[in-house]
C-alpha cells in the first residue's frame, strides 16, 4: 500500500519542484471539491497531494493597472463573489462561477479546479472562454500563457504538460459598453450539471455590436469557442436575423452526447435558444446606464 503524503508549499517554485518530482502520482489540491470526491469513490489514489492555497499568487484577486483582472487559480467562488468590483465588470463570469454546486461548495471550489477537472459541463469554463481569459501555467520548463479554450483536451483531460500547474486567469480590460452573461439549462432549478451552458461577452457602441465572444459548454467533448456565432453578432444590432444566425452557429458546433439529461436533438436545439437569451442579457447589461 502506498502512503499518501500531503504537502503545502508556500512558493510556486517549491510547488512546481515537488509536483514535478512526484510525477503522475501527484494531484493538485485547490478547493478539493472534485479531488476529494474522486479519492473517496476510488477513482483516484494519489500518492502526493500538493495544496496550492498557501501560495499567495494562487489565492489573490488583483485588478491590474490596465483595468483587467488577474484571478489566482485557487480563488473560491465565494471569494470572487465577495470582491468589491469583480462582479460589476464581469457579471457573467461571476454568475457562472456561482452556479457551481451549493454555497458550501462555492466556499471552496475554484475556477482553476473547474477548468483542470476537464469536465465538458464545467460552468465557469464557457464564461471564461467568452471573457477571452488567458491562463498562466508554470512548470519545470518555465512559465507560459495559454488561451482558456485551449486548456480542455477531452472529458477529464487537459492540455497541460507533465509537472505544469495552472497559476491564474487574466481577464482583459473592458472598453465602455461591454458586459457578459452566462446561462445554462438544467433539469432542476438548482445544483445540477449543465445540459447546455452558454457564455456571451459583448461590446456595444451606438447600438451596434463591435466585439463578441461565445463560449459553449456541455455539448461536445470540450467546452468550445464558437467563432461563427461571434461573427454573426459582430456588426449587428442584435436583430432577429443576426441572433438566428448566431443561434444556428451554436447548434452547428454541437457534438453532444445522448444521455438521461438531454438527447442530442434537445441539446443541439437548446444551444441555439440559450445563445439568444444569453446575448440579450449581456446586451442589456452592456447598454444600461450606470
Amino acid at each position, binding site marked *: 500500500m502506498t*502512503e*499518501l*503524503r*500531503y504537502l*503545502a508549499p508556500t512558493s510556486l517554485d517549491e510547488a512546481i519542484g515537488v509536483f514535478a518530482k512526484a510525477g503522475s502520482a501527484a494531484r493538485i*489540491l485547490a*478547493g*478539493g*471539491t472534485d479531488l*476529494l*470526491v474522486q*479519492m*473517496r*469513490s476510488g477513482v483516484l489514489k494519489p500518492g502526493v*497531494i500538493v*495544496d496550492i*492555497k498557501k501560495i499567495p499568487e494562487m489565492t489573490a484577486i488583483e485588478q491590474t493597472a490596465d483595468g483587467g483582472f488577474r484571478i489566482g487559480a485557487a480563488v*473560491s467562488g*465565494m471569494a470572487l463573489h465577495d470582491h468589491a468590483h469583480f462582479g460589476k465588470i464581469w457579471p457573467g463570469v461571476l454568475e457562472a462561477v456561482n452556479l457551481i*454546486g*451549493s*454555497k*458550501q*461548495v462555492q*466556499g*471552496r471550489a475554484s475556477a482553476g479546479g473547474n477548468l483542470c477537472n476537464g469536465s465538458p459541463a464545467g460552468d465557469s469554463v464557457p464564461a471564461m472562454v467568452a471573457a477571452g481569459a488567458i491562463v498562466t501555467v508554470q512548470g519545470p520548463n518555465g512559465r507560459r500563457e495559454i488561451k482558456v479554450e485551449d486548456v480542455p483536451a477531452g472529458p477529464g483531460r487537459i492540455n497541460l504538460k507533465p509537472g505544469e500547474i495552472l497559476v491564474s486567469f487574466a481577464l482583459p480590460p473592458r472598453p465602455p459598453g461591454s458586459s457578459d452573461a452566462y446561462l445554462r439549462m438544467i433539469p432542476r432549478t*438548482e*445544483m445540477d450539471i449543465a445540459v447546455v451552458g452558454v457564455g456571451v461577452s459583448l461590446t456595444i457602441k451606438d447600438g451596434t455590436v463591435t466585439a463578441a465572444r461565445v463560449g459553449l459548454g456541455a455539448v461536445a467533448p470540450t467546452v468550445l469557442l464558437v467563432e461563427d456565432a461571434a461573427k454573426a453578432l459582430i456588426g449587428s444590432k442584435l436583430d432577429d436575423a443576426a441572433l438566428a444566425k448566431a443561434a444556428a452557429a451554436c447548434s452547428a458546433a454541437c457534438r453532444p452526447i445522448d444521455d438521461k439529461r438531454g438527447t442530442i436533438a434537445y441539446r443541439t436545439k437548446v444551444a441555439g435558444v440559450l445563445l439568444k437569451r444569453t446575448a440579450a442579457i449581456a446586451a442589456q447589461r452592456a447598454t444600461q446606464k450606470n
Partner: protein
Amino acid sequence: MAKVHVTTTINGEPMEFLCEPGDTMLDALRGTLNLTGSKEGCASGDCGACSITLDDRLICSCLMLAVESQDHEIRTIEGMANGEKLHPLQQKFLEMAALQCGICTSGMLVASDALLKKNPDPSEEEVRFWLAGNLCRCTGYDKIVRAVMETAQELQNQEMRAQ
C-alpha cells in the same frame, strides 16, 4: 503510518490533533475530536449535513482535508449555543418543529447562521437558494425556511429596539 500533527482553532478554542494525510475534516471532527454534531450524509458534498465554517466561510467538512485546518479557524454546530443558552436559530427550530429525524439539522443551522451573518434580512427565495445545498428527507423544507425567516425577523426587531 506517519500521522500529521495539526494545530488549529475550533469554536474559539486552540486545538491540536493527529490525523492521517487523507482524513477529511469531518473524519477528524467526529472521530479524533469527538465533535459528533456534524453529520456524515453523502460524504461527497451533496447533502450539507457536515456543514461547518472555515474562517467564517460555509463549507462541507467532508470536502476538506483535516490537515488543511492548520492555522485556520473552524466553527461547528457545537460552538453555536452560548453555553446553555441556545442560539436564536436553534431555539426557533425547536419552537417551530423545523426538524424530524434531525440528521440534517446541525448542517441546516450552521448554514442558516452563515446566511444571516452575511444577509440579516433575506427574502424567502434567498433562504431557499442558500439552503439548496442542505438536503432534508423528512420535513420538506417549509418549516425550516419559515424558522430561518422568523429568526431573521426577530433578530432585526431586537436590533431596532437596541438602537
